[in-house]
């Protein structure tokens, strides 16, 4: 190209133009996958230390999109693709910020705002149910009926159960903190033993809760404040033994002159 020119190409103009066109660069192979991940059309996953064993976490530029307990990455990817119709691949390098956010969320010694979640593919009702589950503090449980009541649809208990069962981000969105009205640890997509392990890891005592439920105790009250709570409510746990009253339902509690706690919001009357 740095010759003055030839017969066919006086002045070397064409050769120079060819040389310039030869400067076209190939984009790196990482470009398209990175773009698709950033806009949320493809996902990557990492494995983090969960409260009850390893946890697979899928994410894209919109937020965390799915989790699954365990280490079966192939099964995770297969279920993910079947449900979300997006590719899922192992992350090239662990996303430091996201891993730190998840660790903070799971750290019992810290309060943290939840990371961003990508809940595309869920219904409005499902998202409302998941948002309610997220309000339940670590180590506490609430019945399905409580979630339904909080959403103003007290009859939708089964629908609440179904929505929690479809939680795409278990463990991080704590659907395991929702239990039967008698505190039974029913229906968990990853198995009841895993639900028990998660609650135990958070400092709840699942066996004691189930024992209470079998004996028919639904609420704890304090005879000094005359307030009744769900047994795991932080206020109930402050009541000392001598002042602790047990109620089998809201009707019994209100008949005894107790009012519902404003923090854990048990039903006001038979519910």
């Amino acid at each position, binding site marked *: 190209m*740095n010759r003055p020119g030839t017969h066919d190409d006086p002045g070397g103009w064409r050769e120079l133009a060819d040389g310039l066109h030869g400067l*076209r660069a190939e984009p790196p192979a990482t470009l398209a996958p990175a*773009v698709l991940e950033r806009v949320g059309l493809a996902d990557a996953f990492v494995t983090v230390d969960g409260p009850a064993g390893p946890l697979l976490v899928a994410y894209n*530029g919109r937020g965390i999109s799915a989790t699954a307990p365990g280490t079966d990455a192939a099964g995770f990817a297969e279920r993910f693709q079947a449900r979300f119709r997006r590719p899922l691949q192992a992350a090239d390098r662990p996303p430091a910020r996201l891993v730190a956010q998840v660790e903070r969320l799971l750290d019992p010694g810290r309060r943290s705002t939840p990371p961003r979640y990508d809940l595309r593919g869920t219904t409005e009702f499902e998202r409302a149910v998941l948002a309610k589950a997220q309000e339940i503090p670590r180590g506490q449980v609430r019945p399905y009926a409580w979630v339904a009541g909080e959403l103003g649809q007290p009859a939708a208990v089964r629908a609440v159960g179904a929505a929690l069962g479809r939680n795409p981000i278990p463990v991080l969105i704590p659907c395991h903190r929702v239990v039967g009205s008698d505190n039974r640890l029913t229906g968990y997509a990853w198995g009841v033993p895993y639900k028990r392990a998660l609650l135990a890891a958070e400092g709840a005592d699942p066996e004691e809760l189930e024992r209470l439920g079998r004996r028919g105790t639904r609420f704890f009250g304090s005879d000094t404040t005359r307030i009744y709570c769900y047994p795991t409510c932080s206020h109930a746990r402050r009541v000392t033994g001598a002042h602790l009253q047990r109620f089998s339902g809201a009707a019994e509690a209100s008949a005894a002159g107790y009012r519902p706690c404003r923090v854990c919001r048990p039903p006001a009357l038979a519910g």
Partner: protein
Amino acid sequence: MEPQSELPARLARDLDGSFEELVVVHQRLVYGLALRVVADPADAEEVAQDTFVRAYHALAGYDAQRVAAMRLRPWLAQIALNLARNRLRRRPPPARPLEDGDGQPVAVPAPAAAQPDQLAERRQERELLAELLAGLPRGWREAVVLRHVEGLPYAEVAEVLGRPVGTVKTHVHRGVRQLRERLQAREERVRG
């Protein structure tokens, strides 16, 4: 150069289903353009990523009619060029090369390759041309890159740069002439 595709119409109907195609079709132009402006490959990849991310969100916000009528290539080139210029502005300017008084950078002899085969020679020519291109005034360089490196027709180059076609033609012409003169000057110096 690029066949008139139905991609804008498909994007209008189903952005998520067609966006990958947009990236695949236009990544070479977007990355290539970014690379000729910012020079560093890692920076160019970031600029290219940002270009497509911005394009996605813009397309998601436009109504279907507008998307269907879009001319994607000049639009993407314009976004890429703006982002690349912004990145350049945030970066400290490179050290000015030592010049010999005639406006020519002082030639620093590169360590000689053991066996200068044809491939190495061609690579050297390519690097020399890239270096001379990088030394053009910005307006000329951008016009030359769009027209001759990326092969856009003058009308699109004008659209991307927001200048009249006549002006763009002049800039391309002047840029190419300067490249040719500098190449010849080098050649003469090499010959002694």
